[in-house]
Each structure stands twice: as structure tokens, then as C-alpha cells.
């Protein structure tokens, strides 16, 4: 049974679209990347799953239960980190975390200590006095302190410096090894690429593409750049499998997926002065979905 089952989810805010038709599953133990440009509907999907908002149509099940009807029950096993964290300003970080822990029927004090040590957070400080990055750490601890079996992250790494981002990612991998399923929403493809096993791309309220990262890595995507002694005709590159073509006088670059032999034959006919063929990153492959 999938941990998350989103079925034809639709949400309209009055007449404006939140999401049109979102459909995906997440299996137990997966780290699932949810990517798309701003305003595509990532947060709307997540907020519906968390029962903060009610769907216009469709449904979402978490742990096999309807996410609206059984929200409090589901929430026991869900940890959520929003993109921007806001807490009660006058509280101390430690008090906020203890308040958060008081909702779960278990003792979380040791875990609060461990996590705050890992992330280097001073629990005696008032929320108001914390920097944006430190507030984010409070958010991370708050999301993980009850050892949830599903972790939902909405643009989680904004505001963390590279070192903290690394610690945060290794924390997530630890949780994943412990058995936690993770939904990781982001518009930064490179971080999704770093951590996720499977990705779905959302655009204008619909899932437009879903792929395993392993398939993606194994597939023969090539990033090709050529320079020629003579001006290049874009029409020459009208070959099946070529995307993101950019030509500029004597140079051209594109992403290619398909038989390398076919590509080489095509390129061999050119009067090349330079060529580079490499592995593209996720961003380059999926860029055309964004446009």
C-alpha cells in the first residue's frame, strides 16, 4: 500500500486555480521529489494533504486514510516543515519545541536535545531573536522530534547555509534509512537531484512528468556542445531526441536522448573545431518543462 495516494486532486480558490488535477503515489521508504516553478501548485497540494485547506475535487490518502477525515490521526506520524517558518515570537526556542512535543503522546526531550546539538541551535534564545536560518532549524527540529514516518518538506532548504544544508540532508537520509518516507518539494532541481529517488514535475496545477532518478541517470541523456569553423544552421539539428537547442553563430548546445551512433553520424558531417559531450544535470533536462 502506498504511503501517499493523491487522486485527481483539484483546488480552486474561488475562481483562481490552486491545482487542476494532481495525481501521484509515494511508496513506503521513498524520497519523492516534487518539483515545479513557483505558483505551479506544490504548496496547494501539500496544504491539502495536511488538511489545512479542503479540496474542490479529488482526494488524498495518507497511510491509506483520507487526509481530510482522519487528519489528526494521520498527523501523529507526519512531520511537516513549511517553506517559511513562523512561530510565537515571545517564546524561547526550547519552550516552542516542548509545546510542539506536547501534542504527541511520547517523550521527545532526548530527541530535541540530539537534534539541536546536530544543528547547533541555542534553545534558550527567544524566537524573535533568532536569525532566519536559526528559525529554520527550529522548524526542522519541530518537524522531526516525534520521529514521523512521513516527512513533508516544502522548499526546506531556503535560508540554510551550505554547511547546514548538508547536515540537514544527511539528517533526512538518516531518517529515510530508519524507514521514513519523504516528500520533498522544491523548485531547485539540483537539491532534488542530490537526495530524491523519484521525481514528479508539476506545472500549472498538473503533474506533467514522473521519473525515477535511476532511470534518469541510466538513460542516455547527453549534454552536447559543439563549435564549428563555419556558421551553423539550426535546422541541421532537427533530429529526434534533441531538446533545449541553442545555436549562436558558430556554436550550438543541446540535450540529446537517443542512440549515440545516430548523433555521432550527424555531427561527423560538420566541420567541427571543438566538441564536448557530458552528463547533463536534472535542471538542464527538465528546463523545457518549465518554459
Amino acid at each position: 500500500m502506498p504511503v501517499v495516494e493523491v487522486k485527481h486532486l483539484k483546488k480552486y480558490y474561488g475562481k483562481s486555480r490552486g491545482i487542476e488535477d494532481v495525481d501521484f503515489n509515494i511508496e513506503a521508504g521513498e524520497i519523492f521529489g516534487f518539483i515545479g516553478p513557483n505558483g505551479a501548485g506544490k504548496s496547494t497540494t501539500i496544504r491539502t494533504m495536511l488538511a489545512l485547506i479542503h479540496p474542490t475535487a479529488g482526494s488524498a490518502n495518507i497511510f491509506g486514510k483520507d487526509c481530510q477525515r482522519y487528519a489528526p490521526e494521520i498527523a501523529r506520524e507526519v512531520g511537516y516543515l513549511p517553506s517559511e517558518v513562523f512561530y510565537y515570537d515571545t517564546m524561547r526556542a526550547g519552550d516552542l519545541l516542548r509545546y510542539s512535543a506536547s501534542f504527541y503522546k511520547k517523550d521527545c526531550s532526548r530527541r530535541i536535545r540530539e537534534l539541536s546539538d546536530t544543528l547547533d541551535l541555542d534553545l534558550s534564545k527567544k524566537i524573535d531573536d533568532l536569525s532566519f536560518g536559526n528559525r529554520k532549524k527550529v522548524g526542522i527540529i519541530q518537524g522531526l522530534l516525534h520521529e514521523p514516518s512521513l516527512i513533508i518538506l516544502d522548499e526546506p532548504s531556503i535560508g540554510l547555509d551550505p554547511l547546514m544544508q548538508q547536515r540537514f540532508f544527511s539528517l533526512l537520509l538518516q531518517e529515510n534509512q530508519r524507514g521514513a518516507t519523504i516528500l520533498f518539494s522544491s523548485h531547485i532541481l539540483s537539491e532534488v537531484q542530490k537526495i530524491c529517488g523519484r521525481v514528479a514535475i508539476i506545472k500549472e496545477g498538473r503533474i506533467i512528468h514522473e521519473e525515477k532518478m535511476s532511470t534518469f541517470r541510466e538513460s542516455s541523456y547527453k549534454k552536447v556542445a559543439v563549435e564549428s569553423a563555419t556558421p551553423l544552421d539550426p535546422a541541421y539539428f532537427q533530429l529526434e531526441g534533441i531538446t533545449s537547442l541553442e545555436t549562436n553563430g558558430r556554436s550550438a548546445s543541446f540535450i540529446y536522448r537517443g542512440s549515440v551512433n545516430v548523433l555521432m553520424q550527424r555531427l561527423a558531417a560538420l566541420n567541427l573545431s571543438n566538441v564536448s559531450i557530458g552528463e547533463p544535470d536534472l535542471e538542464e533536462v527538465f528546463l523545457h518543462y518549465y518554459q
Partner: protein
Amino acid sequence: MNILMHELRMYRRSTLTWVMALAATTVFFLAMFPAFHRETAVVTQLLGAFPQLFREAFGVSVDMMVSVVGYYTFLIGYIALVGAVQAMNLGTSLLSREISGKTADFLLTKPVTRSRVVLGKLLAGLVILAFTNLVFITVSCATAFIVSSESFDIKLYLLLSFIVLFMQLIFYAIGFVISTIARRIKSVLPLTLGTVFGFYIISLFSSAIKDDSLRYLTPFRFFDTAYIVNHAAYELPFVLLGLGIIVVAFGVGFVVYRRRDIPAA
């Protein structure tokens, strides 16, 4: 229970401020009673100089300088006005603060039903109002004993004092139901002051033109002090109306909040 305790902690400071302000105002005005009482003749003459319409609007009458209870009937309306502002402010902010402070995402993704969130907050507010009135009534009665040279009807005095609690509950409920319906309330105080003073002005107007049908429109006229002094009781229809407003507002608030969308940060 944790939500209740959390809210009490969050409102500790503002509650103490309100309670002290209310108690200090009460003591200050009651302390002036002996002076008015001694100079009854002068005060009577002075009040007589005001137009009758004005006196009726503000509930000023000549015989209220005779006893501390009479003086209190004049005073209690203003204390209730201050109390109404406190209560509506509280009722409105308990839930709306989570949305304007963007903490609703935190609270409502915890394993707790929305009904329990609302219940915890409502109870916290009721505890705060109960505490406020406990202090107010104690301080008020004690001061009355000190400033009054003669004995007075303590039952009547308490009946008058409890007007404040009743008014607070009504405005607390109104504030609460508004906060569940409004999508987002940016600042609570202007809304509170506008509503409370709106009702207050209606009450001044209705007192001045002596239109009793307008009494049903404003909580400030649910408790007629002259009636209370004469009958040693509240008027049942208005008590029921007040209770009705409270029950309906709480009920509607619960239902609306369970179903509503929480706007994104």
C-alpha cells in the same frame, strides 16, 4: 489542555495589564464618591445645568449621589465599556492571531482536531475573563465598603458588578465568531474599538430618544440599572437574548472553523 495552558501563558502579560487598568479605574472613580456625597447640593445644582437630553443619554441622574449603589449605577456602564473592549479584543485575537502571525500551519498540522484547538482557546479566554471579574469584583466591593460611610445593599452591588462579566461574555462571543468567519484580520484593535463603540453609540442614541425597541440592538442596554435597582433582578428577556447571542456565536464559530481554509503564509 496543552493549548489552554499555552494560551494562558501567551496572554499573561496583556491580561494583567487589563485587570490592573480595570481595577485602578474602578478604585479611582469610587474614591471620588465621598466628595460627591458630601457636596450633594452643589453637584445637584451643577447637573441641573446640563440639558436633560444629555443627562439621559449618559445616564446621569441627580439622586445617584445619595448612596454608593446609586453612584455605582452610573459608573458601571463605563467599566462595562472598558471590559467589553478587553473581551472582544481577546475573543477576536485568540484564533485570528494564529493566522495573522502565520503560526496556524504549525498548530493545525499537529495531531489535534480543529474543534479541540477552538475549545482550548475558548476555555483559555473564559479563564482569563473569569479571573478579570474575580479581581474586579473583589476590588470593587472592598473599595465600596471603604468609601461608603453607611451600609449598602451588597446583593444589589453584586448584581450591578456582574453586568461587566455578562457584557464581556457577549462581546467575547461576538469577537470569536468574527474571527472564525473573517479570512484574515490584520489588526484586531481597530475592529474591536469600532464594534464596541458602534454599539455604545447606539445605546447613547436610544437612551436619549427613549426608544425601548432599540434596546434589543445593543448589549449596552440589555442591563437597565434603574430596573435592577428597583427590582433587585435582571430583566429576563434580555438575559435570555444575551445568552442566545453567546450560544449561537460559539456554535457558529465552531462549525465555521472546522470547515474553513487556512490561508497560506
